[in-house]
């Protein structure tokens, strides 16, 4: 049997770059929409040419939350797999097929949103109704990503066959965990889109069961955030140590935390539906408990990051309680950008615990706090880590160098991002605590006193949003430099190694049947009874609302 050659070939580069192009184009468009939103909400801008706030909001959410993330992640994962377990010609062909299907779906959905035929926000809650093509587009994006799942599964399977008694490479293991998570989670949203939304939007079904559609959405919506986060963790666990001159803290701990994320990030969607009538409070409670289980791998990650930094620093001879922290390579953007992302995860994760606590959720539900929260998680922690990856991955793929000048621009970009986001997300959090609603265009709410408290924070959001947009312009410039203009050369693909005397990783961590079995068991436990309940006691379904937002 001929083993596939490891490493990134020219054709692998093309494949991953195709995904990254889409991601950066999305960053630019989505960022521009974000800027417009903050300006509208500050009361200082009204949109021209009949463009509505909700149209812009939908573009922003869909293109950044769904398109940028999914394309970057799948492209990055193909590169990781090619590097660690290899990719065959046939697999690469299927990988291209996944790209094309996802791209067609994205274009279909995007055109409908841009035409104002699908102003349903990125959650596309029923009974808001979009044009059927929007839903067909979403379905294609999901189907395309499933092809990517099976290519990645196949890659590890083939590698395993020729490496019988070896543990799989850490990064390949992590990619497969993430894709198992994605596949199981997207089954829910695919069911909602194909069984409920498409027939309903075509007029074959007159009404839709709103609660079922929202429950299926959040069955997908929470693991979605882990699908974003896990690739960032891949970089933190297995790439950052190499960049800072250290070793992987613990291969077993890293694998165990990924397994725990797989187990506990799906049967928890109710924590997004705590205020929803029609779901038995007992089952809400059970899912909140399961949600809190996710804190365990999160804190394991925090601990092992600190430990990895400290061990590396002390080995280099830096003493004192925090000498290792002071002497981290702060001037290397491949480290600095993800590190700022990690630091942002301290308030971001804390906010997540608050959101998932039922009583506290009542304080912040549907307020700007939530918007502030996910701009820390996905738009700072995840995004800055993706930028951190881009600084070495793009030149590695394009055969160029990350020059000192681009490195320094990257440092500035990271600082701009941190400052802009502190202002924007900070004021979102505060105004949320003061009751400001999210997902709403500018309004004085009939001149009530409470609403006048919010306006100062909305102006602060516009200031932060403007700074962030400058950060996006700079990042797009850096992307263009790394892709087309930086001097030719070789950039390292950093993959960290284990300590020489590391304990062997226990084999049960790679028992896929066991982990997938427990995952399915937990999902069935957490969802079967409440779901039957929801269907049996359903009120009459809802007719579509295509106006004032939706499809008008």
């Amino acid at each position, binding site marked *: 049997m001929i083993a596939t050659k490891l490493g990134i070939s020219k054709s692998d580069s093309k494949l991953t770059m195709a995904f990254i192009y889409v991601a950066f184009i999305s960053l630019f468009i989505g960022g521009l929409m974000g800027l417009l939103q903050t300006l509208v909400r500050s009361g200082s801008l009204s949109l021209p040419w009949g463009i509505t706030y909700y149209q812009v909001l939908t573009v922003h959410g869909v293109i950044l939350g769904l398109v940028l993330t999914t394309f970057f992640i799948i492209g990055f994962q193909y590169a990781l797999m090619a590097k660690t377990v290899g990719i065959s010609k046939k697999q690469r062909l299927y990988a291209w097929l996944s790209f094309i299907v996802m791209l067609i779906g994205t274009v279909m959905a995007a055109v409908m949103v841009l035409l104002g035929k699908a102003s349903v926000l990125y959650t596309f809650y029923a009974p808001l109704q979009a044009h059927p093509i929007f839903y067909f587009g979403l379905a294609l994006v999901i189907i395309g990503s499933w092809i990517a799942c099976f290519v990645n599964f196949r890659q590890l399977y083939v590698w395993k066959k020729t490496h019988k008694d070896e543990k799989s490479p850490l990064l390949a293991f992590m990619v497969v965990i993430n894709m198992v998570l994605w596949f199981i989670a997207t089954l829910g949203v695919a069911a909602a889109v194909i069984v409920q939304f498409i027939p309903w939007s075509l007029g074959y079904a007159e009404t839709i069961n709103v609660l079922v559609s929202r429950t299926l959405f959040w069955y997908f919506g929470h693991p979605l955030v882990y699908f974003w986060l896990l690739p960032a963790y891949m970089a933190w666990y297995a790439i950052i140590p190499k960049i800072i001159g250290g070793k992987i803290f613990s291969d077993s701990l890293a694998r165990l935390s990924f397994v725990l994320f797989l187990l506990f990030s799906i049967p928890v969607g109710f924590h997004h539906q705590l205020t929803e009538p029609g779901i038995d409070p007992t089952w809400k409670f059970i899912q909140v408990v399961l949600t809190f289980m996710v804190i365990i791998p999160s804190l394991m990650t925090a601990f092992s990051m600190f430990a990895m930094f*400290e061990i590396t620093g002390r080995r280099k001879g830096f003493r004192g309680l925090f000498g290792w922290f002071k002497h981290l390579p702060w001037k290397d953007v491949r480290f600095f950008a993800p590190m700022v992302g990690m630091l942002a995860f301290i308030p971001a994760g*804390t906010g997540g615990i*608050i959101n998932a606590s039922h009583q506290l959720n009542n304080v*912040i539900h549907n307020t700007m706090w939530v918007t502030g929260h996910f701009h820390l998680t996905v738009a700072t922690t995840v995004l800055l880590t993706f930028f951190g990856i881009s600084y070495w991955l793009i030149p590695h793929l394009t055969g160029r160098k990350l020059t000192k000048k681009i490195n320094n621009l990257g440092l500035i970009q990271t600082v701009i991002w941190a400052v802009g986001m502190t202002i924007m997300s900070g004021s979102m959090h505060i105004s949320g605590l003061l009751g400001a609603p999210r997902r709403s265009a500018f309004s004085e709410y009939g001149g009530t006193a409470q609403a006048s408290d919010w306006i100062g924070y909305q102006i602060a959001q516009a200031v932060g949003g403007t700074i962030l947009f400058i950060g996006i312009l700079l990042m797009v410039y850096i992307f263009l430099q790394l892709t087309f203009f930086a001097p030719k050369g070789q950039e390292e693909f950093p993959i960290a190694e284990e300590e020489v005397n590391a304990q062997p990783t226990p084999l049960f961590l790679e028992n896929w049947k066991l982990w997938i079995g427990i995952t399915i068991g937990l999902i069935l436990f957490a969802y079967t009874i409440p779901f039957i309940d929801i269907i049996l006691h359903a009120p009459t379904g809802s007719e579509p609302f295509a106006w004032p937002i939706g499809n008008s």
Partner: protein
Amino acid sequence: MENAEKQKSEERVETPNLKGTLLSVLLLGVFIIVSWFGVFALFLSR
């Protein structure tokens, strides 16, 4: 004999100094708890 010595020296290398990590995770824990009770107080007061 030789083996035992080898093991011993390995053990000595094995215990890294993680005082800074301990303090960092404790601070992280305090931050989470203080924030949580802050919003909880807000819940009780409303």
